[in-house]
């Protein structure tokens, strides 16, 4: 009994901090989401689930959800496809190469997004020179893809880093065994590397999807959600409703909806990760 009590005692501060900075704010937001709360009019009254009923028929919410899901899915797929070869390269390379690859990830997002905004600029942007027909940030159909491009540029190194860590845990003797068994390079990759890399891939997927689903800074700097709300994600919609309009009730509803989505994604991944193979 002693060790358990000692364990509980030592975990208590961490649990208290977690409750204070995560659980309480989440519950407070959930409580606020049941109110009509408009700061400037001092309106604060309980309206039950009316905000959520409005949410279900709010076209702007559904389109924001669509943009967020599309952004998350496409960005992560591309990052994994690019990150894996980069990780394989880094596995052989050393020092300087690794540092160079990490550079985009080390630059603060607001700064790199500003830089990309100039690259996309329809008057002088380099990308505009290379492909003059495309108005990257000005057209509703390309703006979200421009944001995905920026995210891929920035976070592929991060994905590669996680995969690299996974690669380094694969012992050399399995490769030796594979080569003794006569497996070629492709066969070794498919039958040895990929299966053993699965936990690292899942961790990368988990981190990235939770992160991408809450994307805010890159898009905010690039387009502020425009044109015509075509790049508005859930976080940006919630931010605008909360802080620009001062509608704390519906803004909290949007935050709770975002939280619920992220929670579901997290639970699915944790379940998949925890499953014994």
């Amino acid at each position, binding site marked *: 009994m002693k060790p358990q009590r000692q364990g509980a005692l030592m975990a208590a501060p961490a649990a208290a901090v977690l409750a204070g900075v995560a659980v309480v704010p989440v519950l407070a937001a959930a409580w606020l989401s049941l109110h*009509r709360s*408009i*700061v*400037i*009019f*001092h309106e604060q009254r309980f309206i039950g689930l009316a905000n959520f009923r409005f949410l279900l028929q709010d076209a*702007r919410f559904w389109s924001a959800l669509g943009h967020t899901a599309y952004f998350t899915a496409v960005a992560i797929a591309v990052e994994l496809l690019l990150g894996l070869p980069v990780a394989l390269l880094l596995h052989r390379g050393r020092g300087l190469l690794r540092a160079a690859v990490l550079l985009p990830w080390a630059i603060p997002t*607001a700064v790199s997004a*500003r830089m990309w*905004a100039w690259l*996309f*600029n*329809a*008057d*002088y942007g380099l990308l505009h020179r290379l492909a003059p027909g495309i*108005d*990257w*940030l*000005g*057209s*509703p159909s390309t*703006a979200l893809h421009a944001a995905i491009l920026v995210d891929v540029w920035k976070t592929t190194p991060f994905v590669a880093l996680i995969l690299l860590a996974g690669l380094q845990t694969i012992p050399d003797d399995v490769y030796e065994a594979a080569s003794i068994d006569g497996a070629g390079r492709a066969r070794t990759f498919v039958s040895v590397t990929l299966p053993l890399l699965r936990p690292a891939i899942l961790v990368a997927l988990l981190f990235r999807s939770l992160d991408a689903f809450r994307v805010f800074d890159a898009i905010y*700097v690039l*387009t*502020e*959600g*425009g*044109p*015509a*709300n*075509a790049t*508005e994600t859930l976080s940006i919609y919630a931010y*605008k*409703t909360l*802080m*620009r*309009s*001062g*509608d704390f009730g519906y803004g909290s509803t949007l935050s709770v909806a975002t939280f619920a989505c992220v929670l579901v994604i997290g639970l699915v991944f944790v379940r998949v990760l925890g499953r014994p193979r």
Partner: protein
Amino acid sequence: MRALSVCLIAFASCSRTSRDAPATGQVTVVLKHQPLWGDAAPFHAFLDRFRRENPDVLLRTETLPNASDVAREMFLTALEGAADDFDVFAIDVVWAPEFARAGWLADLSASFPPARLRAEFLPHAVEAVTLDGRVYAVPWFLDVGLLFYRADLVRRAPKTYDELREVARAAMARNPRLAGFLWQGRQYEGLNCNVFEAIRGHGGELLRNGRIALDSPEARAALQWMRDAIVSGLSPRSVVSSGEEETRRAFQDGRAVFLRNWPYVWAEVQAPGSPVRGKVGFAPLPSVTGAPGPGTLGGWQLAVNAHSPPARRHAAERLVAFLTSHDAAVDLALHYSRIPARRAVYDDARIRQGAPFIAALLPIALAARPRPVTPYYALASDSIQGELSAAIAGLRSPAEALSRAQRIVDHLENPR
């Protein structure tokens, strides 16, 4: 995104606060304002004069981030929490009705009677700080949308939209690398300013019976003209994603005939090394009829915190009076190129000599019109931006975008 870089700089050069303890009998007054560009010394010298003239007041200043959105968030949370650790603060012109309605601004009508303000200040600047006949802030300095043109390419500024199009077309025919007319079409507050100018230039109004009215024939014509400008090539496609700085740079590089922007552009294009130095003129915006088109009114006002205790409030009102005085406006114009809100300053010999650009702005400043003066504007502004952006980007017709925007505004003003 000028705002963001500005805010980064503002954070880096954060507040310079003197935390001296007040002497006996002294009352502490805290002034929160965004940094003024350039050398801080003249402004501090000016504040020191207030300190000398008011030995009973201990004045402390705190600097805000210069990004309007960020400053607004700070005030929203601080004032909602009934903060009383600051007394006088600078607010953006569109916040005045909203903050007043929320009860966060002290009613200043006793010390600054509306009739006197209207006599001394530019009328529309006073309109923007008045709600239901009461004064809640005093105009500090202005901003106003205006038209810059290349004086070496066009003989005189166009008065009508048709004239602007023809003159720009002629210049573009001579030099195909030129863009005709640059403005700000990115989805942000600046887009609303541009569209409101076009609506007024087409003879429309933005308020009907005190409520925001967007779905009018004039508004449809205005949005159609803006969209047509892009489709016909008068304005480059890049305006759809452009803010102030993108368009200012393109114009300054000599790549455009006309630019709609704010007065700060003047100092930039006339700076040594600017490719268009000495080749730029400015004028009121065009309109359908040829009468000077009203530019959107921007700028900052000084308000007193409603939660300040009475002793501090009295000192705070003295500070507001000092900072919005004739001499203060002259100082701000000479040292910081801030556009005066007081009518008489434009005729002051010091301004005519030292800042002729500002003296020449008078007709434009007089014609400037605020965004809809209603507490609902800030609430509705963001939704309006999205719909206007849809029309500018060609995603929806002007009629459809405006009727959608109107539905959202009606829902906010009159929730069922």
